[in-house]
């Protein structure tokens, strides 16, 4: 049985996934830790937790692919790939039939056109002036002193969502403050914020040919309000995997499996085995 792993070091959370190929590819375990200030440690913790969860020794893992902004800090990684490539791969595995991927990361938001085999056909990422969509929600929550988990459900209660004109996270904060001063309800403000983000993300995705199925990936997919708002402006349902936030790591793990298979033919990775095994 071949075992491989993917580690996705994101700006806020680090995810690890272990997969096995035993006739059929299967996710053995997943682990998630806060990235915090020490990326390397976070990656190791997530990886070890994941192996433990899977009941294997880290040495059993034949190949590790790192992804996410911290990918180069994964000492035990055999190779690295961008999360764009990994999200496409992971999405078409977890949500078969995916042709478009929408992801709101902490660093940047992206839309990806995906081919039949999970390959990237085209992708777009946010402009400078619309950076930090992922943090956009967190910041709004902070300005209103509401916990991030609450904002989604609250936004669904909006009766008259407020209007948010700017795409700039900085200026949005002052807009929110003004609305609070005007005595607008948290629900209506958050409703407005979610719709604004949804519209912005869609206008990003429009730079591609948006084709169904559309999968939403990344941690934000857990936000019911965001999913609702996106489906509202999209005018159609999206595929949201329960493992949405692990999709990058899953994609990385799948690539790790492929590399593993290649390497058994060519043997080029033996040296790296020792490295990851000795870890």
């Amino acid at each position: 049985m071949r075992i491989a792993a993917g580690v996705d070091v994101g700006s806020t959370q680090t995810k690890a996934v272990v997969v096995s190929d035993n006739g059929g590819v299967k996710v053995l375990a997943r682990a998630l830790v806060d990235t915090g200030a020490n990326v390397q440690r976070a990656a190791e913790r997530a990886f070890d937790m994941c192996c433990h969860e899977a009941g294997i020794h880290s040495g059993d893992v034949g190949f590790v692919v790192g992804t996410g902004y911290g990918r180069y800090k994964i000492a035990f990684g055999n190779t690295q790939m961008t999360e764009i490539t990994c999200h496409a791969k992971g999405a078409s595995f977890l949500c078969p039939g995916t042709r478009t991927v929408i992801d709101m990361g902490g660093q940047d938001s992206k839309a990806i056109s995906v081919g039949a085999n999970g390959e990237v056909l085209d992708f777009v990422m946010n402009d400078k002036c619309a950076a930090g969509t992922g943090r956009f929600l967190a910041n709004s929550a902070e300005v209103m002193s509401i916990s991030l988990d609450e904002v989604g459900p609250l936004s669904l209660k909006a009766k008259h969502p407020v209007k948010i004109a700017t795409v700039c996270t900085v200026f949005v904060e002052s807009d929110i403050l003004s609305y609070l001063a005007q005595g607008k309800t948290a629900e209506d403000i958050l409703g407005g914020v979610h719709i604004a983000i949804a519209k912005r993300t869609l206008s990003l995705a429009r730079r591609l040919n948006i084709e169904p199925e559309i999968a939403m990936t990344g941690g934000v997919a857990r936000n019911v309000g965001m999913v609702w708002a996106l489906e509202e402006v999209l005018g159609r349902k999206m595929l949201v995997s329960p493992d949405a936030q692990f999709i990058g790591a899953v994609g990385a793990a799948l690539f790790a499996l492929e590399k593993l298979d290649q390497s058994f033919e060519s043997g080029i990775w033996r040296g790296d085995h020792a490295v990851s095994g000795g870890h």
Partner: protein
Amino acid sequence: MTEKKEYRGSIHQWQKDLMLAWYEQLDQAADTGSPATVSMMISGNCVELLEGFGAVPLYPEVNALQLAIRHQSLDPILAAEDLGYATDNCAYVKADVGCIVKGITPTGGKLPTPTLILCNFVGCNTYLKWFEHLAKLQQAPLYVIDVPFMRANEPSRSDLEYVIKQLQETVKKLEQLTGSKFDYDRFRQAVACSSRTEELWSRIKHLARRSPSPFDAYFDAITLMGPLYVYRARPEGVEFFEAALAELQAKADAHKGVYEQEHFRLVMEGPPPYPYFRTFRDMFAKWQACAVASTYSTVGGLWEFGFRHDPDNPFESVAMHMIAQNVTNRNFLQRYEQIRRYIEEWNADGLIIHFVKSCRLFSAGQGDMRDYFTKQLGVPTLYIESDLEDPRYFAEAQTKNRIDAFFEALEHSKTATPVREET
């Protein structure tokens, strides 16, 4: 480790020497007031006209980019912002103004107050403001050659006449200022030199159609651009480009490329991020991706499609060059067409659009350009944003991430053997 392969032939040193000699002339002009110097814009510059007075061009843009490459652009930029320039003003202008205010020069040498500030207003509106501010700042005489940009695919008769008249007025102006008579024969010889240099430059550009390309038509072309703008109309220029062509021709015939293995062929649109020139180049070198054509290298003139200066019609051909034969004075859709030809005739795998916040003429609407190339023509296109002068707008991690993702995808579509990533 990533490959660091830029063109390093004998002409590389030659090019340096030529530019150094140029700066020495300017230094001398600062001390003795001779030769006469004329500030001009790179785009559609009429350096041939200056030869009629033995005058030397002074290019604020070149100073600005020299500063940026040397990682010295931020201080002058901040100095200019203290004067009231906005963070969203063109950083080329800010760097240049900041230098004059703080008395900085890129080489450490002296720069003269120009005999004439000649605003060859080609394209970019910022040129007008820039030179207007320079005239105010340096108390130097200003003359505008107002060059109508290409509303249609060919310039109209009245466009041509308007520019020719102004060229003749410029001659009068310079005769007053320098006190010397315009040497028409020398002007014609200069135009003749230019046409020869242009022929050589065009052949060099066409060498990039070979696979592998003997040089990078973006990063390496930039090193060749200095002599092109300063010496085009002089024998030194012809000599230099003869050598350059010979050297690159030999390299091409020996099937030597920029990299051991030319993995990807690209067309580059937009100026480079000079403050991170090396870093940016390495992001492509890592993937053994070679630029085979670039729009930026046609800012000073567009010659690979056949235009040459004409010694039999010196004024008219100078006017034609200023109006129709440089990328900034052509309209946005003509740029689409230029890129399309590059992609097809130089057979490129993809297009990189580099949005620079400083230059709206280059960058405003590049999203539509991306839309045209991806959706209309199905050309793999990457769109990235930073700046050509202001180091504060280059997000290294984000840019690298996007470039890597682009090549990961391109690689899959080409099913080329994977180039392994290293940290």
